[in-house]
Every structure is written in structure tokens, then in C-alpha cells.
């Protein structure tokens, strides 16, 4: 081979196959590698990478599980979900942004808050359209705005909204390339990424068992799949859908294969959820429908049954738990006079008391692991701290950590657990993995150019979940940063904004944002975005979707198919794998990668050399490869990976012996292997919460059932429920990764993908039980309106037995298509109307499920007359939305 670039250009010939990881977590992490066949600069097909494409399987030591006389061997190909297979549609979507845009009535020469011609017209964000700019003009404006804002207000004047969901890319990181540039300018105000799919674990469960950083089990998950196969008799899947979230977040379809195998092994799977979710649909031995966000009542009744019948592990509680008595006082009614009996619980949660008793009996007598698909409705409602804490307590009552008794997340978490343990405590609690560990865990983060949670926190920061309040009121005064990687101790730290002597932010710089459709109370957020003190909204995005509609300047970034990059499957799925991600096609239109965009801005600011460290993209790829340690370990040379494009790390032959499974060490010796709680034990009563927040009735020291409170009134028992009679259940989407891929029309053709309305529009499915549909005169296929005080949105009715009565089910993340921005959405973005208030007063988590709303049949003709503009936008039969719809076609104001 002559040189790297020669080799690469010769491969850029008419036909080639490149590798691209199909993970959509938005961090540098990657997974589920695919092979992309390209011909004449066009993507022909995307298919799973077969591990043995260029290697003999014995090169990577294939592993297998053996349990109960049966064997499980992982497939010889990456577990690619349909997202990767359909991604060609995303790359070529008619909704791609192909050149820089400026809002037609936003003039950077205008004074802050100015309206009319020559003004900034913040009041028109979300309404007015856009005109094309050249890159030169765009970069001039952007550089001048950054300079002006930093000079006027200090670096805190720029808010970086630099995290979220998107493709997994390393050098061309879709989130946070901006952070490194702003650091060179003295800092910035940071939007803090909350634990957006595990709120309850973070704000609640950590006070029972630590288990940093997430509060769900990531610290002690080594070999946990194997432990379940060998020792577990029953799996409880409460609000768990391993057939959705893991698809986009590293797990791929691994959970499918293992869930089927567990059934073959005779392990019973019990699903407790308002909906017969996608995992329950095919894996459930029993579905127990529970009303949204009432799980804690059910859990308290289980504890009640175990206490009164003595069917819990008393010896374990004696040695591994503190505060059991105070917990028992509440459960038995000694604290409040209300025993938490199955009958009591049944009225709250809708599960028959006899079923609760049967569940208590089985869980109390069979080795049970509770599993989660990572997040889910169970953990994202008001007071989500309570079910999360209760779950750990229930596991504790049954000997948490004993073989077969664990909490298992269907998304590999050991990597995060390990990285945080190493960075924070200088030690690594775990080195194994959920699947059999490789001999080396490759880490290519040395080349990551994006945002790294917690490692780069700024003094000036705003929790994402209260951003709208902070814009409106100009300040906050809270406990806890809400950073998803912060330890439990942080929740007792007092924070204020703006920092003393510093300014509020006045410019927002966002990369691939999706707040409106993925975070809390999107409608309120949109109103806040029109606040005159926000002088500039700069957005980078590959697609004209969601928050882009509120930007002043839009810069077109591109997809991973258009760049050279490096990938690493380090959420190990079947195997750890490192791969070169060679450019598949030339960039579409005038688009550049997010990294290249920030390089160009840095160049305008005279900071290119410092920003890039003098390195080209090829240099960074080498930096990432070198960081993996594969060459030093004698596994794979730089030459070999250039030749073969990928390398599969061999399985450690000692994987089973070397890494203790789950929490067995804590189980066997809690003194030697303590949890990271103050006592080192499981804290059923949290002294720390009692001392820091003695008056907090929403997160008291022992988990409680909370009917309503200062923060929330979202129960069927309340006054509001007379008007809004149904509880919304909203999961991670099946046919999207959060907001991503809603323009892939091939998913719209799937029965639960979209409902094609009588007007041909692709409406987001709204599930209703036949009894609820009948009451409202709704039939499958009807266009319906979901509403509460916070706004309304349209959807397409899907009447089904997969949902219990009393509930509306809708996936979050539907593309936002405003009829009236901030009030009424056609696309079905349910998060536009979820609660403004956070998890509870001292927990700045978001609430996106388990809230009240009503649904009614929609008169489409009347709406079309009332809102002619919204119903006549350019519309693609395929994707539903086109880039052209936002283009200004009349007289310009340029």
C-alpha cells in the first residue's frame, strides 16, 4: 500500500463496501456495524456486518452460554435493527437541509428585541420562513454574533445546547464540537443533560443503593445475562420494553435473541405495564396491565404481603439493609394509618388485589430478576423517584445480588459505569461486560470531538428540564445539577443562575436539537424561545425538523455516510469491534459535518489551529485507533485495519471465572464490597434525604405513594381528571430513535408506524382500548385530537386490545409540524403537552408519561378551513415533510 490517502481514493472508485455503525445514541459511542454497498456515489444497500466477513471465527474466539442443558451461540452477524437497514431513506430524505439558511425577518444588525423591518423579530420564531445564504455569509454572521455576544455579556452569554440524540459519530460528533471552541473563548453557559430516560433511577434509586452514575444497575452488570440463564426463575419486566430502546442505543436486537432463549429455558417473563408493549407482545407469559404511573402502589402492596407473611429474606435484610423498620412502618400503616394492602393498591393501580397477592407469592418464592429496556414509562412520570426506590427495596427484600436476583438493563452499561468509576474514584469497579468480556475493551474516545457529560461541566449551567423557566424568569435556585453523570452527593449541592456577577445567556447555539418533541412541555419551551432576550438562535442540523423551525440561522450538517470517521462497538453486543467508517458518498448539497462546521467557525475567529490541534480528520482517526490499544496489545495493526476495515476483539477465554456476576460480591460480603451509599448498605430509609430535605413530601426518606402535591395533579382521582379523563402512557418509540427517522416512510407503512389519514397525511398512532374509543365515537383510522391545558395535537386512532382502558398510548418523538406554534401540533409530538413541572420539587427530572389528557374525534374539514396555511404546506407522500416548506418564496428582506 502506497499511502493512506492513495489507498482511500482508489477505493472511492465506482463500487465499494464501507462500514458504518448504526447506533443513534448521540455520543461518540457506537454499535451494530453495518456494511454499506455503494455504487457510483449512491448507496445501494445497507446490511448487517458479518463478523466472519474477513476473519475466521476462531480468530475472535466465539463464545457461548450453556445453561440447563441448552446452549446459546450468538449469531455470526451484528444485531442490526431495522433503523440501520432503512437509513438510506434518511440520508436521501427530502427533508435534508442542503444549504445555510437565515430567518427572513431576523436581521443581525437589529437591536436586541427589535421588531419590524431591520429587527430581530424574536416573536416570529416558529412562524416566519427562511432564505438561502452562502457559507461565506453564514460564517461571517455566526462569527460576528459569537464575538458580539461574548464581548457584550461575557462567554456565559452563549448557551450551548450541545447534547441530545443523533447518530453515533466520533470525530464528526453531532453534539458538542462547539464546546471545545467556546472553551477557547473563555467558556459558555452549559445546558445540562438530564438523565432523560432514567429519571427515577437517578433521583431516587441512587439514595437506596448508589449504583453510580445512573442509579439503574450499570456498576454491577458483568456477566448478568449468563447469571439469569443459569439461576433466574422469573423475570419481572415492569415498564420494560427491550424490543424498543436497545435497538437504537447499543443493544441492537440482542435482547430479542436472549429473551426467546430465556423462554426456551423455562424462565417465566411477567410484564407489568399499561400497554402490551413490543416485548410483552412476543415474550410475555403474563401481562399485568397497570395504570400509568401507579406502579408504586402495586410495589408497596407486594412489600406488605411479604412483611405480613414473612416471605422475605430476613437474614439478608439484617446484614445488608439499613432503615427497614421505618420502611415497614409506612408499609404497614403505622406511619399514616393506612396499611398498603393489595386492596388499597388495587384501587390506585387498577390491578386486581388477587393478582397482586399471586405476584407477591411467586416473587417471594422464585429467584427473580427485574429487567428494564432502559427507561420506559415506569420511570418517567411524576415522582418517578418512588417506583425506582421501591424496586430496589423489593429486590433487597429478596436478597439482591444472590445468584439469579439482580436488576438487569437490556442496554450494556458497564462501559459507562467503568468510565465514571475510573474518572471519579480513580478505580474501576467493573471491568467485565454483560455479554462475555473481550480480552481488551477498546476505547477510541481520544478522537472524540464532541461533548463528554460531567467531564467538562461549566460553572454557568442550566438544567435542560427547566430551561424554559430559566429563560422566562431569568434565574434559578435549586439543588442538584441534574447532570446525568453526577453522583448522588450532587443532589444536595445548591446551585444558582446567573452566577454572581455574571450575565444571563442571550444567544443559543444548538446542534441537532429536538427539545420540542423529546423533552418536557415543548409548547412552553417554544414560547420561551420567543423571549426578546434571546437575541440569536443558531442551529446545526441535517434535517429540517423539530426545533429548527425556531432558529434564526440554520447550518446544514450531514450524516455519517458523508464523512470519514472511526467507529467502535463498545457497548459490546455480540462482540467488541473497531472499524474504519469510510465516507460512503459525497456530502449532499452544501452540507458539512458538525465538526467541519465548527472548524470553519473557528477559522473565522482565528482559532482554527488551536481548535483542531493542527490535526486533519485522518490524523484524528489515527489518534482514535492508537487510543484503542489494539496495536500495543498485538491484536491489530494500523495496516491491518486499513486493509480489512474492521477488527473483532477476541473473547476472553476466562470471561466467566474472571468477572463476578451481577452483585454477588455485595451479596456475599457487604462489608468488603459496600455500595456507594453513606452506610455502604441498601438504605430503605435515607438519613441523607431526611437531613437535607426534611420537609420534602414528594421525595420523603422512605418511598411513598403520593396522590398529588404542590408540583403535580396528574391522578385519575383529581379534579382535573373530570375534564381530562385519561392517563397518557408514552414510551420510547418503536419505529424511531426518539426524534430520529420519523421521515422514513418505510416505517410509516407498518401497522403501528403511522396512521394514514383520509387527507393522506401520516398521523402519529394514538392507541385506545375499544371501550374508550367507543365512548368517544372513535374508530381505527380516525384523526383524533389529544389535549389538556398545555395544548393539543393530532394523531391517528389505533384501536387495540394491546392497551388497558383508561389510558392513551402514544410514542414520543414524532416530528413536530405546528398548526399554531406553541399551541397545536399536527405531527403528534406528545411532549409538547406533558407537564412543565419536573419530577418533584428537589428533582429536576422531566415528566413525559403518566399525565392527564383527553382525546376526541377531529373534524378535519373544519380544521382545514380554520388553518389553511398549516394544511397546505408542501408535503411529500413519503416523508410527510419537505425542506422546501420553510423556504421564503415572497419578497425578501435581505
Amino acid at each position, binding site marked *: 500500500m502506497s499511502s493512506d490517502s492513495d489507498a482511500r481514493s482508489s477505493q472511492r472508485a465506482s463500487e465499494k463496501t464501507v462500514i458504518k455503525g448504526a447506533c443513534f445514541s448521540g455520543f461518540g459511542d457506537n454499535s451494530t456495524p453495518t456494511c454499506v454497498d455503494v455504487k457510483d456515489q449512491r448507496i445501494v444497500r445497507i446490511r448487517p456486518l458479518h463478523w466472519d466477513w474477513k476473519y475466521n471465527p476462531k480468530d475472535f474466539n466465539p463464545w457461548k452460554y450453556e445453561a440447563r442443558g441448552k446452549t446459546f451461540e450468538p449469531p455470526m452477524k451484528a444485531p442490526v*435493527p431495522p433503523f440501520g437497514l432503512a437509513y438510506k431513506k434518511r440520508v436521501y430524505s427530502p427533508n435534508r437541509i442542503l444549504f445555510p439558511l437565515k430567518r427572513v425577518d431576523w436581521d443581525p444588525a437589529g437591536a436586541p428585541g427589535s421588531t419590524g423591518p431591520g429587527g430581530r423579530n424574536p416573536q416570529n420564531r416558529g412562524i416566519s420562513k427562511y432564505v438561502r445564504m452562502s457559507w461565506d455569509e453564514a460564517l461571517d454572521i455566526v462569527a460576528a454574533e459569537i464575538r458580539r455576544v461574548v464581548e457584550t455579556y461575557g462567554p456565559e452569554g452563549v448557551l450551548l445546547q450541545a447534547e441530545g440524540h443523533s447518530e453515533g459519530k466520533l470525530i464528526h460528533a453531532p453534539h458538542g464540537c462547539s464546546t471545545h471552541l467556546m472553551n477557547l473563548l473563555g467558556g459558555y453557559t452549559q445546558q445540562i443533560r438530564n438523565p432523560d430516560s432514567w429519571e427515577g433511577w437517578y433521583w431516587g434509586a441512587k439514595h437506596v443503593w448508589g449504583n453510580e452514575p445512573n442509579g439503574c444497575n450499570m456498576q454491577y452488570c458483568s456477566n448478568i445475562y449468563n447469571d439469569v440463564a443459569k439461576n433466574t426463575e422469573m423475570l419481572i419486566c415492569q415498564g420494560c420494553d427491550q424490543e424498543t430502546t436497545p435497538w437504537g442505543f447499543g443493544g441492537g436486537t440482542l435482547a430479542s435473541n436472549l429473551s426467546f432463549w430465556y423462554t426456551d429455558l423455562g424462565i417465566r417473563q411477567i410484564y407489568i405495564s399499561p400497554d402490551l408493549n413490543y416485548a410483552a407482545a412476543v415474550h410475555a407469559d403474563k401481562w399485568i396491565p397497570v395504570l400509568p404511573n401507579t406502579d408504586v402502589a402495586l410495589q408497596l402492596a407486594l412489600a406488605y404481603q411479604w412483611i405480613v407473611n414473612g416471605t422475605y429474606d430476613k437474614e439478608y435484610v439484617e446484614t445488608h439493609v439499613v432503615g427497614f423498620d421505618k420502611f415497614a412502618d409506612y408499609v404497614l400503616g403505622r406511619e399514616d394509618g393506612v396499611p398498603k394492602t393489595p386492596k388499597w393498591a388495587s384501587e390506585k393501580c387498577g390491578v386486581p388485589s388477587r393478582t397482586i397477592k399471586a405476584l407477591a407469592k411467586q416473587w417471594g418464592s422464585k429467584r427473580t430478576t427485574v429487567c428494564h429496556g432502559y427507561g420506559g414509562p415506569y420511570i418517567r412520570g411524576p415522582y418517578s423517584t418512588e417506583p425506582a426506590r421501591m424496586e430496589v427495596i423489593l429486590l433487597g427484600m429478596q436478597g439482591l445480588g444472590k445468584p439469579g436476583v439482580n436488576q438487569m438493563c437490556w442496554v450494556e452499561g458497564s462501559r459507562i459505569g467503568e468510565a465514571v468509576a475510573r474518572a471519579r474514584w480513580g478505580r474501576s469497579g467493573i471491568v467485565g461486560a454483560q455479554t462475555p468480556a473481550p480480552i481488551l475493551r477498546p476505547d477510541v474516545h481520544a478522537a472524540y470531538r464532541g461533548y463528554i457529560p460531567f467531564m467538562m461541566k461549566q460553572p454557568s449551567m442550566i438544567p435542560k428540564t427547566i430551561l424554559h423557566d430559566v429563560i422566562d424568569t431569568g434565574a434559578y435556585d435549586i439543588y442538584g445539577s441534574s447532570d446525568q453523570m453526577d453522583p448522588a452527593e450532587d443532589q444536595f449541592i445548591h446551585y444558582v443562575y446567573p452566577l454572581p456577577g455574571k450575565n444571563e445567556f442571550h444567544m443559543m447555539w444548538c446542534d441537532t436539537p429536538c427539545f420540542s418533541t423529546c423533552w418536557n412541555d415543548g409548547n412552553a419551551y417554544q414560547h420561551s424561545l420567543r423571549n426578546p432576550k434571546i437575541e440569536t438562535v443558531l442551529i446545526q442540523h441535517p434535517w429540517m425538523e423539530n426545533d429548527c423551525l425556531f432558529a434564526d440561522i440554520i447550518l446544514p450538517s450531514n450524516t455519517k455516510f458523508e464523512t470519514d470517521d472511526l467507529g467502535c462497538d463498545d457497548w459490546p453486543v455480540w462482540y467488541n469491534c473497531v472499524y474504519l467508517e469510510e465516507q460512503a458518498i459525497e456530502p449532499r448539497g452544501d452540507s458539512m459535518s458538525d465538526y467541519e462546521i465548527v472548524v470553519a467557525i473557528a477559522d473565522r475567529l482565528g482559532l482554527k489551529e488551536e481548535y483542531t490541534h493542527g490535526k486533519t480528520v485522518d490524523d484524528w482517526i489515527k489518534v482514535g485507533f492508537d487510543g484503542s490499544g489494539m496495536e500495543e496489545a498485538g491484536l491489530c495493526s494500523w495496516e491491518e485495519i486499513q486493509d480489512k476495515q474492521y477488527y473483532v476483539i477476541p473473547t476472553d477465554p476466562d470471561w466467566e471465572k474472571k468477572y463476578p456476576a451481577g452483585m454477588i460480591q455485595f451479596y456475599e460480603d457487604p462489608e468488603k464490597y459496600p455500595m456507594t451509599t453513606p452506610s455502604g448498605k441498601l438504605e430503605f430509609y435515607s438519613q441523607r434525604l431526611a437531613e437535607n430535605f426534611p420537609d420534602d413530601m414528594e421525595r420523603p426518606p422512605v418511598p411513598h405513594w403520593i396522590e398529588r402535591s404542590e408540583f403535580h395533579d396528574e391522578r385519575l382521582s383529581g379534579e382535573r381528571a373530570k375534564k381530562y379523563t385519561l392517563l397518557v402512557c408514552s414510551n420510547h418509540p418503536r419505529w424511531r430513535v426518539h426524534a430520529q427517522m420519523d421521515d422514513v416512510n418505510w416505517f410509516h407503512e407498518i*401497522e403501528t408506524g403511522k396512521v394514514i389519514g383520509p387527507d393522506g397525511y401520516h398521523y402519529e398512532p394514538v392507541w385506545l382500548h375499544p371501550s374508550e374509543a367507543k365512548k368517544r365515537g372513535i374508530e381505527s383510522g380516525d384523526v383524533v385530537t389529544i389535549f389538556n391545558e398545555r395544548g393539543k395535537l393530532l394523531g391517528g386512532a389505533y384501536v387495540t386490545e394491546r392497551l388497558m382502558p383508561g389510558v392513551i398510548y402514544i410514542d414520543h418523538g414524532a416530528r413536530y409540524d405546528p398548526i399554531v406554534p406553541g399551541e397545536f401540533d399536527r405531527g403528534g409530538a406528545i411532549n409538547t403537552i406533558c407537564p412543565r413541572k419536573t419530577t418533584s420539587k428537589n428533582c429536576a427530572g422531566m415528566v413525559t408519561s403518566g399525565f392527564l389528557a383527553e382525546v376526541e374525534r377531529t373534524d378535519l374539514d373544519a380544521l382545514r378551513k380554520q388553518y389553511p396555511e398549516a394544511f397546505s404546506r408542501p408535503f411529500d407522500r413519503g416523508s410527510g415533510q419537505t425542506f422546501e416548506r420553510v423556504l421564503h418564496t415572497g419578497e425578501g428582506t435581505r
Partner: protein
Amino acid sequence: MKAMIIDITKCNGCYACQIACKDEHVANDWTPIAKPQPDTGQFWMKTKDIVRGQVPRVKVAYMHHICQHCDEAPCLKACKMGAIYKREDGTVIIDPVKCSGHKLCIDACPYGVIYYNNDLQIAQKCTWCAHLLDKGWKEPRCVDSCPTGALQFGEEEDLKDLIARAEMLLPEANVGPRIYYIGLPKRFVAGGVYDPEEDECVEDATVSLKDAAGKEVATAKTDGFGDFWFDGLGVGVYSMRVEKSGYVPIEIIDISTEQDINIGDLELSKSAQ
């Protein structure tokens, strides 16, 4: 001769097969095997949700409809242009150049898996990705993309153990299909049994199911939740008896399996004695 296995019991409903088929055939021209599939509306490998039962006893099965590559293919016989042929490996192909859009094959197909392309004015269907098989691929895109092993493809001889326990779709059509199904959804009758006095689920009750002729077709014991399931039933009318020592037995008649049925939670009263 090639054959395909579709194991419904291993399908997670991810639709990867349906999507991969579109990825392969939409906007890609594989003449002489196939011309491009339209962007939407055609499903050469069609997945379909079948929601079975009523709350809370519900399951979902994912059915797959695909050209059966019949040995006695009615489409082949119906085509007046001689555009449809069977390859040596068993694959039935509609020649996209010879096809002149008479739609006779569409009417002749008992499985409803041939589509009409209005723009190209030709009939189109699954080709088992013969253009890839001819390049050395071992299986079509749908099978390559199936993550769970629910779809398998290969020489009939190599699949004979699976074929032995498989069923064909519409065997009465007698056209020699080469797609073999495992676990085709039939009908189920499910329910639960409880003791209202104790407010407990009744475990280990014996439930026996009889057909319309009064012949016992199955018995089951209730599980820890008091639940029982009879799956794999034909369409018909059944009766049921639930009994447990110490309780008054109950009988339920006229259970129709026009659709899968959750007959609900049944009260079992303690015997007087």
C-alpha cells in the same frame, strides 16, 4: 431446490425483513431478475401484526406473506406471455422485460403476493433476491437481515428436519409452495380462575375443553395467577369445565373461536361442605 422456513414463534416483529426487501429493491434495478419496486405500497416480504385475544390475555403474532415459489405455480400457468418461469433452484421469476402487464398472474395467485406496478405496467413479486444468489449470496436480503433466526433459507435437503415439523399455507390449493411455516397462529381460548371469597387466584384447577361434538380436546391446569391457555385450536364452538376439589365445578358453553378469546376471570365458589 431451495426452500424457506418462516418460524413465527421466533419472530420479534422487527420488520427488518420487510425493510431490507425495500432497501434492496426500491430504486435499484436488478433486470433481468426484477425492475425497481415502487417506494411504497408493495411488500414482496410482507409482515403483518395479528393481535390475538382481549385485555389482559393478549399476544401478538407476526405473519409473513411472501411469494411461495410454488412448484405448480398458478401464476406461471396463467401468464399468456410466457413471462414467468421457474429456475432450477426453485425460484419463480416474473421476467420484467417480457411481462406486458395483463395481470393474469395476479388473479391466479392464491396467496395474493403479486403486485402491479402502475408506473412500469408490470407485475412484480419476491425473487428470493436471485440476482444476489447468482453472485454467490447464500440467502436473500430478508433472511440476511433477520436478527433472530426466524427466517431461514437453503437447500430443501438441509432444512428437512425443520420442514418435517412445518406447515404450508393454503395446502388445499395444492400448488407445491416452497415456503414452510412453523407456529402459524391458530386460535386460543384463555381465562383465569379465582376464589371471590378468599380474594385469591386459584392455582391447579383443572380446565378441560370439549369440542362441539362433546369430545375432550385438551386439559390444562391453572398457573399461579389462576390462568389457563389453550392454544393451537381450530375455528369452532367449544365448551369448558373448570373443577378443583373443594369447589363447585363450573361449565361454560358456546365458546366461539371465530377469534382468539379471553373468556375472562371465572369465579369458583367453595363447595357447601
